[in-house]
Structure formats: C-alpha cells, structure tokens
C-alpha cells in the first residue's frame, strides 16, 4: 500500500508541476520537500495538491478520505512537509 500511495503522490506532483513549473519538482522522490521551510509549494499549490490527492487516493482505495483534517492541521510536524511524511500520513488515514 505504501508504495502505491507514494507512486500516486509523485504522479500528482508531476501533473501539478506542469502548471507550477518548479525546478524542485521536476523529478520528485520520497525526499522531495513540499510545504513549509524550503518546500516547493506555496499555500495555493498545497490546496491543489491536497484536493488532487484526495480524489486519486479515494478512487484508488475506494475510501472517501479527507486529507486536511483536524489531526493534519494540529500536528507539530506537518504531514505535508515532504513526500515521505505525506505517504505515512495517508497510509495512517486509510488504515483507520
């Protein structure tokens, strides 16, 4: 499951970057920084990433998830900081 989630995140990032055209997102990997600090996404791009991911993950796993939930927003270290943390976070939601 983890590999599939990571694969989807990377696919979504590549699609998103067709619009954003950020060098840092040219070849996303599990270490690619997303939001906060030196992350490549601004808040509007993060909104796009979240909404695209919600749809793709919900379709793939047949589970209507909401990524921007209370837990995500209140965690001390944001799950949106890089691809790996986001993968782990999504896996946790799917397993709940």
């Amino acid at each position: 499951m983890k590999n599939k989630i990571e694969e989807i995140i990377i696919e979504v990032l590549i699609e998103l970057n067709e619009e954003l055209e950020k060098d840092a997102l040219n070849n996303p990997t599990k270490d690619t920084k997303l939001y906060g600090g030196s992350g490549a996404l601004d808040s509007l791009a993060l909104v796009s990433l979240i909404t695209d991911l919600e749809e793709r993950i919900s379709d793939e796993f047949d589970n209507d998830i909401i990524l921007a939930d209370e837990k995500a927003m209140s965690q001390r270290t944001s799950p949106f900081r890089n691809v790996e943390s986001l993968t782990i976070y999504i896996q946790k939601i799917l397993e709940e």
Partner: protein
Amino acid sequence: MKKVILITGTRKGIGKELAEYYLSLGCNVIGCSRGPGTIVNSDYRHYELDVSNEKDVVKMVRAAKKEFERIDILLNNAGIASMNHFLTTPYQTVQNIFNTNFFGTFLFSREVSKVMMRQKFGRIVNYTTVASALRLEGEAIYAASKGAIENFTQTISKEVAPYNITVNAIGPTPVETDLIKAVPKDKIADLLDKQAIKRFGTFEDIKNVIDFFIDDKSNFITGQIIYLGGIHN
C-alpha cells in the same frame, strides 16, 4: 454543453422549484434532502443526507463528480428557520440551525470548490435573509447563522477568485413556503412593511437573482449580497 447544478434542499419549497426550473432548461441537477427525493427526471439525481454530515457530503460530491465529470454551479439552498426570543431558545435548536444553515453551506462550498478549482470555473450562490440585515427581533439565531454565511461568502469569494469561481449570496424576503408557515401573520406584515417594496417575494424574484449570479457573463460579480424588496444593511 449541459450545465451541472448541485442544489441542496430539493425535496420541497424553493429548492424543488429551482431544481425543476433548471431541469426544464436542460441542465443536469443533483439534489439532496434528509428525506427521499420528490423529483422524477432522468437528468436528476437525489441523495438522502444531512447537509452537516461531513462524510456523506464528501461522498455525494465525489459521486456527482464521477458521474458528470464537473459541477458548474452550487446553490446552497438548504436551510431551516426558527422564530423565538433568544432567552427561550434551546441550545439544541441553535445547534440544529447552525448545522444546517452554516455548517452545511461550509461543507458543500468546500467540497464543490475542490471540483470547481480543477475545472477553473464555478458559481456558488449562498442564501442569507433580510432578517440578517434588519436585525429582526425573534430571529436572532436564524439571522446569526445567515450573518455567518454572509461573512463566509465574502471571504471565500477572495480565496477562490484565482480559480474563476464566484461566490455570492441572495437575501430573500419572506416567500410563502413551509419555512414561514409557523410565523404569526402580524410578524410577517411588520416585516413586509420594512421593505421598500411591500409584498411577499416570489419564486420568480429569487430565480432572477440566481440567474444573474450564475450567468457566464457574471464573471466579475463576486462577494455580493443582494437582498430582495429594497432591504439593505
């Protein structure tokens, strides 16, 4: 291309009339209410849900997106009213009113905006009331829930503007529907007297404003609240 319109609260009243009107224009209409649907039309889909149930709203919007591939227009029509002196208003009543009126509007706006931002087009129409502008005694809670919607409408209109989504609100005067049948006649007469044009609103009056807000040409109209009958803040 057929427009896809999502309308909440389509079992009766204005919501049902609007759904039938847009169906007659050849639109696809997706509706919902707490009870079973009352509209039979091959272009109509009905979902039974409580508009303040997050999971059900998410599910409905995703299913609608899957079937029709887009949602052009959202009419946050579902609403409940209650007249009561605030000193004798049960807390549960306040929660129910905010659940349907404000939280329902929030949830549908959020979920449908996600679809609209991808298609880079959307029209959202929220519902307020002249009771909010008039600070009507006896409607403190109902008007407060609508006041929240007005502020929300204007703020999110800025947040979604980059995606070519407009968000506006209509503030109807009393219309002769179920929503006001329990309101004493003299109270309604007092209210009508406060309007510049002293008559009940009609379905046509509401439709006219909504048609204006959702028109393709209205892409420079956002964050606006239009009250019927010549009421203003």
